[in-house]
């Protein structure tokens, strides 16, 4: 405190008053908001895990076919739905991610301030706001009415939902790549395509990948667009391109509406499975992001 310099001690504490009060109020409000967010999250996780964990077993995850509602747990399994979710969502990702990333590359690298880039960007934003059930109806009218139910139709619907998310997240990532890196590459005699492929995309890949995986995780849980497009059957259909299919999300929808104990247990089990799949994807996203950004420290 007071040093032997003979100078008067200066009070460096934050003075009491309105400024300090404001700070305390803001800090309190932040902690309150944090708690408000945490409560439902913890509650949902706790409920799904506690009610779903008893249903999970190897035969539940891989066995099939999905039994009729009246049968108790232990008969058949949700294998067909797990397979359906993986193939439908996987193919949707295969459709949406390349198109979405290329679209974002066009908007940010090639379109410049041109009208086409602005129109695409605007339409992608509008598309983000389209309710998922409308996307299902859209695919129903343009595809199902002509070619019948199939996993492919489900992939189309999910792909349409993922596309604007992928475009938007990739675009934001590309925008973050500093122009100085592009200039460095141009100054070495690179063409625009080279600059994009060898500098811009690698610099943004971490964010693009995690954005894409978030879109996949989101799509894997979508129910409404699949109700119209895959018809939700009980047996495994490994052929994505023809015949009705099934998915975890729609099975949850069907089973949870049923009054039978076995069906409800299956719905909880499926919900937990879906959460675990989504969690695994997030984990993969984190690992890939870390791997691709190891030089960007």
């Amino acid at each position: 405190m007071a040093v032997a310099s003979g100078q008067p001690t200066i009070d460096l504490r934050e003075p009491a008053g309105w400024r300090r009060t404001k700070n305390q109020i803001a800090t309190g409000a932040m902690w309150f908001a944090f708690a408000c967010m945490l409560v439902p999250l913890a509650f949902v996780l706790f409920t799904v895990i506690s009610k779903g964990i008893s249903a999970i077993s190897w035969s539940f995850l891989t066995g099939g076919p999905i039994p009729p509602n009246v049968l108790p747990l232990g008969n058949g399994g949700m294998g067909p739905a797990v397979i359906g979710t993986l193939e439908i969502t996987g193919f949707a990702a295969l459709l949406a991610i390349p198109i979405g990333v290329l679209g974002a590359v066009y908007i940010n690298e090639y379109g410049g301030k041109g009208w086409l880039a602005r129109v695409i960007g605007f339409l992608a934003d509008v598309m983000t706001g389209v309710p998922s059930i409308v996307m299902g109806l859209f695919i129903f009218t343009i595809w199902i009415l002509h070619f019948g139910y199939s996993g492919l139709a489900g992939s189309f619907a999910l792909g349409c939902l993922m596309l604007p998310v992928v475009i938007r997240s990739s675009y934001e990532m590309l925008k973050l790549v500093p122009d100085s890196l592009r200039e460095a590459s141009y100054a070495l005699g690179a063409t625009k395509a080279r600059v994009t492929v060898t500098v811009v995309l690698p610099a943004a890949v971490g964010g693009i990948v995690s954005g894409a995986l978030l879109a996949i995780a989101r799509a894997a849980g979508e129910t409404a667009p699949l109700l119209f497009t895959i018809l939700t059957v009980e047996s495994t259909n490994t052929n994505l391109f023809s015949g009705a299919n099934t998915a975890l999300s729609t099975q949850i929808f069907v089973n949870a509406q049923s009054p039978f104990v076995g069906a409800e247990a299956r719905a909880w089990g499926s919900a937990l499975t879906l959460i675990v799949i989504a969690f695994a994807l997030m984990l993969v996203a984190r690992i890939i992001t870390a791997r691709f950004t190891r030089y960007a420290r």
Partner: protein
Amino acid sequence: MEQPDQLAQAEQKVIAKLALPEPAAAGEQFKATGQTVFDAKNVSIYYGSFRAVTDVSLSIYENEITAFIGPSGCGKTTVLRTLNRMNDLIASARVDGEVHYRGASLYHPTVSATAVRRRIGMVFQKPNPFPKSIYDNVAYGPKINGTRGKAKLDEIVERSLRQAALWDEVKDRLSKSALGISGGQQQRLCIARTLAVEPDVVLMDEPCSALDPIATGRIEDLMKELKSRYTIVIVTHNMQQATRVSDRTAFYSVLRDEKSDVRTGVLVEYGATQQIFEDPHDSRTQAYVTGRMG
């Protein structure tokens, strides 16, 4: 709508008042040892309707270091960036007049900007290494220009890093991130990256402005060593740096029309560095180099 015309007229009036030294005359005072690398004639550079630089004519000679000095906004960086067509990247930029590079017109419609930049490299104001490993940063240029084979790339990387006086500091961590080395090292890495494609000319846009005096000294030493193999043009705000490293100096200044407040950059004086700093012919050059202005 008539305003741009008025502004242009105002500019012309101001420019007419200046007796700019003829670049040819300036060249005669200092006999060129090498061949002419760049020959710019009456170059004006526009960003949209704004004329950033007006009527610059100068020649740059082989194996010399040419410094561009002048106050902020005088267009020295803009002129530098027209020498390897980096201004093409700005949609609104336009170049009037003739820029010749070793006899070829740089802005001829059939000339590829990519081919130009392959020969005329650039080091930027802020170190801008790629977020890749040190090795990959240096190997990047040769790779995109078609060099294949690990042994060959290894050799290029070592040679370039040695030329940039960085090899001994990084040889044990070539696979580490280029962003993990210091600012001065990063700038030397950027120089090595530019040298790796074996350019003819190296343009440097205030390469030391983000560096401390020790790192600056190393880069200046490096430039003097590189002079025997490359032609170097450097933009600098640091006049001591210009006197230390350059053979020839071009002083740019800002012309401002009092009435319209139109500003444009002009080349005021160009000559041997010693002459520019010790015996400037133009009073504005004298005011600038003696520290009375800008």
